């Protein structure tokens, strides 16, 4: 690619992914506020570019793990909005039959293997996915998403150290939105940049403007290629911001007004949309058509979710354990 830049189609695809996250978020918040769905919701609004830039370099075979604020990562990876909506609504047509809920979206078809509600826990499990890939030599890459708060839990260190000594094909993506729940990043995190910690493990660390989809796309391309080529893990710190606090209903009083206003002023979607038009990458009409198409998809996802049945209470007894095995595991069972 000339100048290491994304081509026009890639730029439009980035916009499409970011718009899907934004529009979907708008409707989830509306449905939650009006009581049509009952969820504790961790909005990813403001972090769209991080997920879009990463997902642009992944195939359906690649795996990700993410966290409670992870709907942007799931949508970007390709989880259909209708199964997410149905899961948020607690319906049997949800990705997890309504048994996991918003914090545990799982969708192996698109490689979303774990969504965890525990800060830091996306990383140790992602290593195992990468270990399987390494042993099988199947070239899959794993993305472990987490927030700045998770960089201060022990699992971060254990995971990066193990990934580095085993040279696992994994990219650790710290989505630094500057607040861990209600706690300001610089007040509770020593050392400044999280990406600088990569040096402690002898692996590359990239500090990226996570609000710029082109910068994210470039950094992700480099990091994912590194991991896929067998050169070991990479740590990305994507600097971003969340527009709606820790969870829906949070009054965000701990965020200085000017900081929030400045972030919203620089809304990654507004900035990128203007960029695409100004640089002749897309016309207003083309982008508006994409937005209209997504709007329709999301409304349909909501409608179908709310019309679907709830799971039967008998589900309490199902999926706790699998069926008992009455005969030995067949020898040399084909590895999935």
């Amino acid at each position, binding site marked *: 690619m000339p100048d290491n830049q994304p081509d026009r189609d890639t730029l439009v695809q980035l916009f499409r992914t970011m718009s899907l996250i934004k529009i979907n978020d708008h409707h989830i918040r509306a449905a939650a506020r009006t009581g049509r769905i009952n969820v504790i919701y961790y909005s990813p609004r403001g972090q769209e570019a991080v997920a879009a830039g990463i997902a642009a370099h992944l195939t359906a075979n690649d795996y990700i793990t993410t966290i409670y604020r992870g709907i942007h990562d799931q949508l970007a990876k390709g989880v259909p909005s209708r199964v997410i909506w149905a899961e948020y609504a607690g319906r049997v047509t949800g990705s997890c039959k309504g048994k996991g809920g918003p914090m545990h979206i799982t969708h192996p078809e698109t490689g979303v293997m774990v969504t965890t509600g525990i800060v830091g826990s996306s990383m140790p499990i992602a290593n195992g*996915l990468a270990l399987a890939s390494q042993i099988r030599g199947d070239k899959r890459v794993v993305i472990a998403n987490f927030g700045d708060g998770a960089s201060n839990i022990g699992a971060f260190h254990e995971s990066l150290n193990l990934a580095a000594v085993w040279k696992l094909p994994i990219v650790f993506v710290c989505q630094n939105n500057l607040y861990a729940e209600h706690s300001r990043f610089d007040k509770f995190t020593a050392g400044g940049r999280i990406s600088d910690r990569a040096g402690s493990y002898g692996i590359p660390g990239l500090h990226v403007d996570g609000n710029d989809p082109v910068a994210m796309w470039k950094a992700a391309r480099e990091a994912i290629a590194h991991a896929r080529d067998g050169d070991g893990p990479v740590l990305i710190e994507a600097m971003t911001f969340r527009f709606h606090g820790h969870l829906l209903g949070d009054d965000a009083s701990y965020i200085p007004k000017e900081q929030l206003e400045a972030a919203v002023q620089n809304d990654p979607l507004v900035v990128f949309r203007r960029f695409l038009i100004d640089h002749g990458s897309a016309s207003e009409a083309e982008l508006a058509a994409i937005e209209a198409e997504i709007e329709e998809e999301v409304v349909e996802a909501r409608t179908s979710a709310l019309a679907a049945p709830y799971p039967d209470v008998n589900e309490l007894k199902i999926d706790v354990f699998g069926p008992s095995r009455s005969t030995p595991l067949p020898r040399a*069972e084909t590895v999935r």
Partner: protein
Amino acid sequence: MTDMINSIEALNRALADAMTDHPEVILLGEDLADEEGGGIVGVTKGLSGRFGDSRVRSTPISEQAIIGAGIGAALVGMRPVCEIMLMNFTTVAMDMITNHAAKLRFMSGGQTHVPMVIRTMTGTGLGNGGQHSDYLEAWFAHTPGMKVVSYSSPSEAYGLMRSAIDDDDPVLFIENIPGYFATGPAPLAGTRIPLGIANIARNGEDVTIISYSEMVNLALAAAAALAEQGISAEVIDLRTIAPYDRATVLTSVGKTGRAVIVHEAVRDFGVGAEIAADISEALHGKLAAPVRRLGGASCPVPFSKPLETAFAPRKEDIIEIIRGLF
């Protein structure tokens, strides 16, 4: 002549046979490759040489990372056997075990599952003190989605380990440290002992002793002594502690009318309480005596020999409590 082996050898054979039969079986844990000694007591000795460093991996001292790696690999079809050297060290990996391994099948609506074995050793008797000796099985038994397994002889160690590896759900596999060294007849290669089914280790008529792990051998010794005093004790080895074989326990106690549960774990709030409650609910009015429990004292495992000996149930304690039922 029957080949006599100890449980270290039996487990080594189980792991080797499973790795031979199933390419997806991998071993992860501290010091378990040959370069690091083949395991702290030698359970994995020779396996890295035989199956390679890619499948038999020594790890840093990072219990969360060990179990996390096991979970991730299991989610995509590997069958990891992770070693957490000592049962007390599971405490630093509890999030991985109870929030993730145990729950992912349910929370994913059955889309994923975690066919992983966690091997761990423990037990009093060697003066390891308060942080290297605990039986913590009740914590895991209290977590739906976890299976908890223990054995009381080398051949059972083999057969239960093979079944644990075959199983499609996470299994915590408890190995007793002093018990490692007792020998018994070697198992036939490939033998499985099914999970979820208790073993009647000794038939009896007057009282049922329900136990598991090394305490089964104490219960058998007590039963032999009681027989000389005219009391016929049936001994049940649960083998699978969770979910346990209620039917076998209730059938036996229904027959004998008396029950004593014996475990090395602290008695209070332990596995014995759950079993005692089940027996009372199912057989109230048919019991000839109250259900009794014997377990560790309500204190951390002490170091000094006389204290450590007094902490865990002894053969004499079992005999005494049973004589009190008649």
